[in-house]
């Protein structure tokens, strides 16, 4: 959990808005440090978290969260965290052993045309399982509103899923988690350099990005510095609020620069890096 980012976003584990769909995107920059922030944030806020870790192994996320002060293994034990390890489960889908067909949630690996419905069912069942959000009749701890974190959506595109299917999946998640269950959704998307869209059914990360920006209410866009590579400032984050107020859309943009270090990240206004001042 990055304290400076909390003050920028005006949230804290004790008070945060519910029903938010947050999009974290990075263009040619790695925005995954923000996913670690949100993971530790919502675990500290005692929410029931469903984390789709498709890109790295469980021990990677666990080691990073350890530095941020949260233990993923303990959260998993207490059933606060439902973790889908994409790599390990995916391998058993690619190379089926004996007769087991592998985790049903990752059935899109076998045939990407099918879409992400099974993945959505997995998410739905994990956030509404007993012990999360409802009274725990067997004495298990009660957790707060459900939160879905996805790391990351662009690997789904790399595995052959169409942008349309990913947009459908995010819409379903938003509808069920944000609107019905008053929880939050955080999704990470990585875009490549600008690509021209020649035909309709292309790789589609640009289309996916535009669709998700339209759906979200808070967008954090990470990119490199426009002046080039710098060792002390790793890049800039553009924070865009799109709150839906009663009196119409209210948009606000702010740009910060950031530097990632071992135990967190520091955010500062442009030009106020400690290396400069």
């Amino acid at each position, binding site marked *: 959990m990055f304290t400076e980012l909390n003050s920028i976003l005006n949230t804290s584990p004790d008070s945060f808005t519910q029903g938010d769909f947050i999009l974290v995107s990075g263009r040619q920059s790695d925005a995954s440090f923000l996913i670690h922030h949100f993971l530790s944030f919502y675990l500290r806020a005692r929410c029931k978290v469903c984390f789709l870790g498709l890109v790295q192994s469980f021990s990677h996320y666990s*080691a990073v969260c350890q530095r941020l002060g949260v233990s993923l293994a303990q959260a998993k034990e207490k059933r606060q965290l439902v973790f889908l390890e994409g790599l390990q489960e995916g391998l058993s889908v690619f190379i089926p052993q004996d007769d087991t067909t592998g985790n049903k949630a990752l059935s899109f690996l076998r045939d990407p045309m099918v879409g992400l419905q099974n993945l959505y069912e997995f998410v739905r069942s994990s956030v509404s399982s007993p012990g999360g959000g409802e009274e725990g009749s067997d004495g298990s701890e009660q957790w707060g509103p459900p939160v879905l974190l996805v790391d990351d959506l662009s690997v789904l595109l790399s595995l052959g899923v169409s942008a349309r299917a990913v947009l459908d999946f995010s819409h379903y998640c938003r509808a069920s988690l944000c609107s019905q269950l008053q929880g939050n959704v955080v999704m990470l998307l990585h875009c490549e*350099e600008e690509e021209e869209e020649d035909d309709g059914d292309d790789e589609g990360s640009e289309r996916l990005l535009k669709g998700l920006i339209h759906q979200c209410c808070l967008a954090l866009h990470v990119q490199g510095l426009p002046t080039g590579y710098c060792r002390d400032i790793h890049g800039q984050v553009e924070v865009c609020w799109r709150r839906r107020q009663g009196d119409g859309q209210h948009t606000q943009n702010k740009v910060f620069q950031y530097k990632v*270090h071992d135990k967190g990240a520091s955010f500062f206004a442009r030009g106020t890096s400690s290396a400069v001042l």
Partner: protein
Amino acid sequence: MAAPVNSVVNSSAKCSSFNATSFQKKTRSRLISIPGTRPSVQNGQLLVSTGVTSLDYLLGGGLAVGTVLLIEEDRYDSYSRMILKYFLAEGVVCRHELFVASAQHTPDDILQELPSPILDDVAIHKPVEQPRLSHEPQDSLDAMKIAWRYQNLPKVQTALASSSRFGHYYDVSKMMEAEIREAAKCHRFYLPEHPTQSSPTHSPMLESYSALLKSLRDVIQREGFEVTAPMSKSRNILRIGLHSLGSTLWGDDLCCHDNPRHGHALTTFLYGLRALLRSSLSVAVVTVPSHLIQNRALMGRITRLCDNAIALESFKGSEREANPLYKDYHGLLHVRQVPHLNCLASQLPDHKDLAFKLKRKQSHIQCGILWPFHLFIYFDL
């Protein structure tokens, strides 16, 4: 401070009982000491050498076990193939096991071209010496005057001494001797030997890549490289060299079309490869002919699915060869990506403009990476 260290030890032990991947925090109780590896100073991960010591430095000390290094080939596949051979040669010297896959050349062709190590602490079996000794006992007596205890022992070691050094130097002008090479266990995958069975699957991965992935998984399981394998036997590292993935010889059309039909074959394979590597004590080097791939977004996706990525650009045959700025170098090296595993921040190199050349040192030719050549601009004025 004692307390935080204890909590780290406890939690990592707990982690290991839930999930076994190759990224374990080094604790006193589970020290894996495998020859040819060393823990990283930054985050304690187990590192192996790529065979080129300056490349090790660029990658943050070495290649982390469980990761993939992507090498974007230069135009004639000369330097990328050389780095692949250095990687395999380092495996032979450190007594790791090798897995070589290729669609173009037979793996044996690649293995026969491994560079010879330049070592003073590795004794190499020299059969030519022994007849000379028997004919001239005087010399042998003179030579052994001080070390009389060892007179009756064979003069040279026949086995390759396991080198405790991390990173070695190689002489590219000489091939590695067959005895040393054959001492290493090597698994081969030559694509024409694996007839493609078209299975009724809609998976985007091509049959060639599936066969390769299955073969890798079989070797890893059979030879006990999985992290979850019992610790009773001594552990070793599997070095995987995959040559020219994505080229048309693998059945892929990435290099032919702007919008390839099998656009997701290689990325799906790389995802499966990452899954295999994360759960085993192995490290992979993959070369891809990126200069043939027109779709830059696709190349970006391929890069992101590998942990380390470098690109080589050789000056051979290009107009840069005549440029006085580059006259001392053989090509440019671009670091596309460095991993940040088990930590938030990645160790980016200080400089991004790098050049490489083959150094002729004494009578050897070695491959090395030189530092920011743009500094030399001042001297060329």
